[in-house]
């Protein structure tokens, strides 16, 4: 039997570098104009997880993002690290989409490709951080899902992944087509190479509009998003009295804390 090359798709989102983000107080959307952008950290790990499978098996890796054209250099960066192909879904109509239309649009592009075996997403982004898009895509394309994973391997039509949960590590096995969401810091992303960068420049980026993936414009965007950001509120400040304690008074403070049961001093 001839094994066809695996098709792996990595979803990436370009996010503002944490320290410089703020939410526009008028439109309630992220104001990116002041911030430098980066590839969402977990997505770098997702790309690396896909490339590690490609190191072992005959596979094609496609990176994809739904974003304005400013994302192009980041797609090029992914190809310079080893992705074979880059797809930009770009359409004015998607602006303001919440996670439902975002998942729908990404899923439609995956369906258009037709032959996708494994989709890699980040566990969550560093900006709005919902973690909805990976599971949402799995639901739309009808794939099995292993969320919050690290150490993903592929063999004979099955993906094995270690899901890191609050109380332990669960090892699961799911058949393809599969979606895995990858934990931040779960591997060491490789660097770009000059040769791959030159290759990437030759290949270029594939751009699709909504029409290319058969999504009507009125299915997406702010107006077709179930959730709406209504207002911004000040951070809930629970101010406390902030009583100043001199170093010499620490023994007294400890006595009070022991007396009120906040600290328990057990005998050794």
């Amino acid at each position, binding site marked *: 039997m001839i094994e066809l090359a695996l098709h792996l798709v990595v979803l990436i989102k370009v996010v*503002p570098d944490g320290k410089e*983000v*703020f*939410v526009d107080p008028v439109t309630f959307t992220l104001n990116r104009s002041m911030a430098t952008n980066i590839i969402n950290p977990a997505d770098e790990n997702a790309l690396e997880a896909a490339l590690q499978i490609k190191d072992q098996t005959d596979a094609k890796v496609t990176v994809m993002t739904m974003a304005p054209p400013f994302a192009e250099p980041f797609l090029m960066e992914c190809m310079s690290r080893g992705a074979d192909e880059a797809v930009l879904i770009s359409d004015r109509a998607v602006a303001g989409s*919440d996670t*439902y239309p975002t998942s729908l649009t990404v899923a439609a592009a995956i*369906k258009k490709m037709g032959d996708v075996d494994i989709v890699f997403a980040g566990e969550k982004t*560093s*900006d*709005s951080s*919902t*973690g*909805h898009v*990976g*599971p949402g895509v799995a*639901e*739309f*394309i*009808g794939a*099995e*899902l*292993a969320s919050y994973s690290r150490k993903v391997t592929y063999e004979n039509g099955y993906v*094995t992944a270690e899901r890191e*949960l*609050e*109380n*332990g*590590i669960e*090892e*699961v096995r799911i058949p393809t087509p599969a979606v895995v969401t990858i934990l931040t810091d779960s591997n060491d992303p490789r660097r770009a190479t000059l040769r791959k960068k030159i290759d990437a420049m030759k290949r270029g980026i594939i751009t699709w509009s909504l029409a290319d993936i058969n999504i009507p414009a*009125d*299915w997406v965007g702010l107006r077709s*998003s*179930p*959730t*709406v*950001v*209504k*207002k*911004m509120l*000040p*951070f*809930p*400040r629970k*101010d*406390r009295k*902030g*009583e100043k*304690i*001199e*170093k010499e008074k*620490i023994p007294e*403070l400890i006595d009070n*804390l*022991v007396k009120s049961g906040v*600290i*328990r*001093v057990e*005998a*050794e």
Partner: protein
Amino acid sequence: MAEMKKAEPPKDVSQYKGIMVYLDSFEGKLTRAAHEMIGVGRKMADKVKEPCIGVVIGDKVDSMADDAGKYGCDEVYGFESHDLSMYRSRPFTDILSSMVFEKKPNILIVPGTKNGRDLAARTAVRVQSGLTADCMEIDVEPETDILIARRPDYGDSTMSEIRCEKHRPQMATSRPGTFDLPPYDEKRSFKKEIRKVELKKDQLREEILSFKPKGGEDITVSKVLVSGGLGMGNADGLKLIEQLASIMGGSYGVTRPVADLGWAPRDHQVGQTGKIVRPDLYIAAGISGKPQHIVGMMDSKTVIAVNKDPDAEITRYSDYVINGDLYEILPVFIEELKKRKKMKDKN
């Protein structure tokens, strides 16, 4: 599997009534996060005078259903099968979605554990509704039956209020630790219905090969936490933090940059992208008190700040403030506590 379609709002939202709470469990027990959500659901149910409906899925659910009723659910639906002893994304989504279609709740809240977030995100797509993640506040407006969900932002000092006005159910998750536990009432009456489920092969394609419980401490259950920030200056500073924590039988926490630098494991990070803790005592040493850290610890009972800078933001969120170098202050705490231990030993 969801239809590839836009999210269609129902024609008549007034048909949707009640607050549904998904009850996340582990090894046959409801999680703490599930109990927190029962408390949130109960409060909203009282406000709008609609039932609080619990849904629990597992291999043996009877005692969990009782637990949910005694903590505040009016109706509890349990789904039982040997194949459901551990969370599996597809069958759990199938069951929760079918309950949404059957009961038509106005609101559905889900504990924001990892499995809970997985389930909520899939279910929102399946039932074509909106989901707000990581809410710090969840409430309902009685006049309109609209869910008010508030989540922290990325930048400094703001929270967004998110609403899902047209679609139902209005969904939200919250990080574990965000809310207090509701009161337990042994005598509370509630309706319980356990249903046995037969799953089809195509619902069970996910196979769980193994589960290894995580060693190490869970900082969300510690009564005392001593946390260190960048003010430690180096990775070795953590030793002092740990020493003070262990003398009080507690554990240690850190800020995000400390975890980023690899000075401490990510499991110990407190804050918006770490854990939410509410210990009896929280000592913040060398921590400036940025909002993303504060959201993770602001419900601690007593907070002590140790900082070189007398005007650091953390002072506003602290009961007691000790101005000085943590390398001079923390050893005083350690010595004093040691003295008291020795005295106890003698007695």
